[in-house]
């Protein structure tokens, strides 16, 4: 990988930064390192161009060995082994699109144009964070790329689909939050007693528009 940028995050973790923004390169590096269990890496976190390695209970065996492995990693993109496309239903009804007006003003588009643009894009699950099951989806069209709300909302309803900067996200549960809400999905993204990981890192995502009636049918089930 050439010269490696890395820093400590406490005594139990190190961060490899400035790796490719391509999620497949990031996952490739993660999976490559998983092939060396003797390095003492217990878990991995992917965030913006950064891979965080968290050590096992007794620390890393040798940080310099880890860095050597990272440097030796050569990515061969195999686009054929992509995860299956995940279709996420979304309802853009004004009862759910809480920031409809603001979005129209900031993007200088009418809502049907905003919806068309949001539906047309294909997204990639780039990371999870903020709260359990909250996916950060890359691939938001530039025409919808807007800053966060000036002051966060105290209550964002469960399932709200929201956008901020160049990302789209879905709130798996009710929470305070600062992204503009574009619609709502009836899909459950975090149910620890059933499907632990309904979405996976690197997975491709497309949204599919549903009516309020169909949405209401979903939530009854």
């Amino acid at each position, binding site marked *: 990988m050439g010269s490696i940028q890395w820093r400590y995050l406490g*005594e139990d*973790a190190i961060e490899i930064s400035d790796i490719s923004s391509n999620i497949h390169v990031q996952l490739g590096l993660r999976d490559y390192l998983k092939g060396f269990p003797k390095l003492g890496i217990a878990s991995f976190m992917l965030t*913006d161009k950064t891979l965080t390695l968290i050590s096992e209970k007794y620390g890393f065996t040798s940080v310099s060995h880890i860095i050597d492995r990272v440097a030796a990693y050569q990515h061969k993109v195999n686009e054929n082994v992509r995860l299956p496309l995940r279709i996420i239903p979304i309802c853009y009804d004004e009862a759910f699109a809480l920031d409809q007006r603001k979005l129209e003003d900031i993007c200088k588009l009418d809502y049907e144009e905003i919806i068309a643009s949001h539906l047309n894009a294909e997204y990639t699950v780039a990371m999870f964070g903020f709260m359990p099951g909250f996916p*950060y989806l890359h691939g938001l069209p530039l025409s919808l790329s807007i800053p966060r709300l000036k002051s966060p909302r105290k209550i964002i309803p469960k399932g709200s689909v929201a956008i901020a900067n160049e990302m789209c996200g879905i709130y798996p549960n009710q929470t305070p939050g600062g992204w503009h809400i574009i619609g709502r999905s009836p899909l459950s993204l975090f149910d620890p*007693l059933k499907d632990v990981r309904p979405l996976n890192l690197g997975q491709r995502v497309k949204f599919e528009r549903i009516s309020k009636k169909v949405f209401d049918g979903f939530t009854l089930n």
Partner: protein
Amino acid sequence: MDLPLIRIINSGNLSTLQAVCRFGFSDFGIPKSGFQDSISAQLANWLVGNKRFNTLIESYANYFEFEVINDCSMGVQGACSEIRINGQSVSLDQAHHLRVNDRIELFNNTHGAILYLAMAGGFTATEVLGSTATDIANGLGGLNGLPFTSKDILKGSKFNMPRHTRSIPEGLSSRRYFSKNVTVHVIAGPEAYLFTKEVIDNFYSHAFLLSAEISRVGYRLTGYPIHADSYNIPSKTVLPGTIQIPPSGDPIILMADGPVTGGYPRMGVVAKVDQPILAQLRSGGRVRFLACLPEEARLREANQRQWIEELYHKKTER
């Protein structure tokens, strides 16, 4: 078989069931949770012959009161200055056998904040993703994912009366590290470069005040605002102990239930060995930071782990 063990009469503040942390799901956004002060918790479990990470009560109560429903054996460590059984003061740092209808009162007049109460055999709690630890923010584990309240009944397993009553060896009680003024070691964080040398020098030479904003998610410090050159960074991984500097300048230290990512500059991370000391600071107390290298932090943590493991492996008292 689960038996009802105790009925809470006065639960005090932020009382939850905690246990070994929920490890391995941070890449899906799930916090670790678990003990805020793992030393006191392990000592409490040891007192009653439990495994180190058995499910026990963690509480920020200054006064905690309960009634015994079935005979049990209790170990208390952490922030407790007096134990009364049916109105009679009994010794701290020792296991106590409790009988049906006993009324137990725990008082905290120490400089510590968090009490741990273990019962022989451990408490029964909902296991979610490999851990019974309560995560209040996400409603996972413990007693329905919530702090418990007065009138709640906690269950546990039927215990066998241990042959010996354990006492914490001289000098090992968790109260020894409680203070109004604490110093904790900090490993420089990934965004330390966003601060000028002068700001960093100030960060490591001034005492910060612990505000009233303390929770299992984070502790907010005040009294000496710290400012970064830039706050425009993407969300990155944070761990318990991470010191974040938000634009207000008042540092936030993430605790056991903290989120897995955060978008504020990470000035540093409190060394694991000192996280119990920080967790036990009461609001109004002062904390100073001492820069340390990861190797040193790991060595000090290994020493700490060693004396706990030695205590657990001593055969004489079994």
